[in-house]
């Protein structure tokens, strides 16, 4: 069963590759930010998977439960998500300003406009 055991990690890696591909290959700035968000969520999945114990339960101490999943990754990722949306918003604000300055949010068009100047 070792073949399928690391499946969680593999999906995290695949999502990371998908996010990376979008960020590199796509010229549209909004799409790039969505790709970056996918990249980010793959890291969430990686951390939380590492903290899981088979047969464990959520780390809220209660009577009759003995095995809890590791709370530390949860803390790290919880704050990472909120910081992530704050940085996403900052990126989107920059995109809006770029649209207002250049009239486009396609990377290639922005480059060609810069070269004309």
């Amino acid at each position, binding site marked *: 069963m070792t073949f399928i055991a690391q499946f969680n990690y593999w999906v995290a890696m695949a999502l990371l590759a998908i996010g990376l591909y979008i960020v590199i290959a796509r010229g*549209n700035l909004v799409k790039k930010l*969505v790709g970056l968000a996918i990249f980010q969520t793959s890291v969430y999945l990686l951390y939380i998977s590492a903290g899981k114990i088979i047969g464990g339960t*959520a780390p809220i101490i209660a009577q009759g439960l003995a095995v809890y*999943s590791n709370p*530390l990754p949860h803390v790290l990722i919880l704050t990472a*998500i909120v910081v992530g949306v704050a940085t996403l*918003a*900052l990126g989107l604000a920059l995109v809006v300003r770029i649209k207002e300055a250049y009239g486009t*949010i396609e990377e290639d068009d922005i480059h060609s406009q810069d070269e004309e100047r």
Partner: protein
Amino acid sequence: MLLVLLLASALAIVRARNLFAVVVLSGIYSFIMATQLTVLDAVDVAMTEASVGAGISTVLLLGTLYLTGSEEAAPGHRPVLPLLVAIATAGMLIYGTLGIPVFGDPSGPIHQHVAPRYLQEAVEATGIPNVVTAVLASYRGYDTLGETTVIFTAGIGVILLLGMGRRARYGAQGQGGGMQEYLVLRVIAKLLIPFALLFALYVQFHGDFGPGGGFQAGVILAAGVIFYTIIFGLANAQRLVPPRLVEILVALGVAIYALVGDIGLLLGGNYLDYFVLDRDPVHGQHRGVFWVEAGVCITVAGVMLAIFFAFAGRRRRPDAKS
């Protein structure tokens, strides 16, 4: 199975050319991710991902699309090189997973270090059964103060870049806006918004005992007001929650958090040491965690609202395609 769905929705995001579809798909992706996180026992994280990833992010992305247009241009060249880079990265990382402990194995190094201490001591030391909250607000209070400051900074950045929707009053939005003419939406919004706000308070104050805490409560509070704004228009919402108040909230939360640390110093403890806040150490912990979580909630709610107002208050430029 959820993981396969996750992969499928991510691939659909790659393929979709219409950005509107991309945004909706990314909302779906976030919800599947939140469900998967619940399966992995991370209930606090799942709640955050559901409210942030599927809620706020989607609203912000849609707001950006309104301002920038929703069609993606066809790529000028074939993306062979990026594909190779992505596949090579994934290949190396998957090769790396062969050397790490098996998924869910309790004897892995991650479960041997500080986690057992947190799980055994947290309840006695802090009186908080939700270990995630205890670690977040007490054991790793410095980290959380730093992260709250990052959110604060990002909020300031967005306000600087886009303004708070005050300069943009010349648009057509002045006479109400929103979707007020739809009776069904209006009635349902009035029914739901009080419960959304009440739920945020429950998440805030019950965060010690169940999943929840300042981050989630702040986002849910902001989501309630954002819902109101979408239905009743920006002008009405800003009469309810003036931009000035939002600006104060953004700074007030971080100030409360930092002050809790200062009070600890004045009472003779270390910075962010809650044991000295009360004669009984466990009560002191409770008091410290309460105020710290309140500070986090206020800043997060303020920043989310500030960001939303900034996007909503921006007028579309005349040359923008719809």
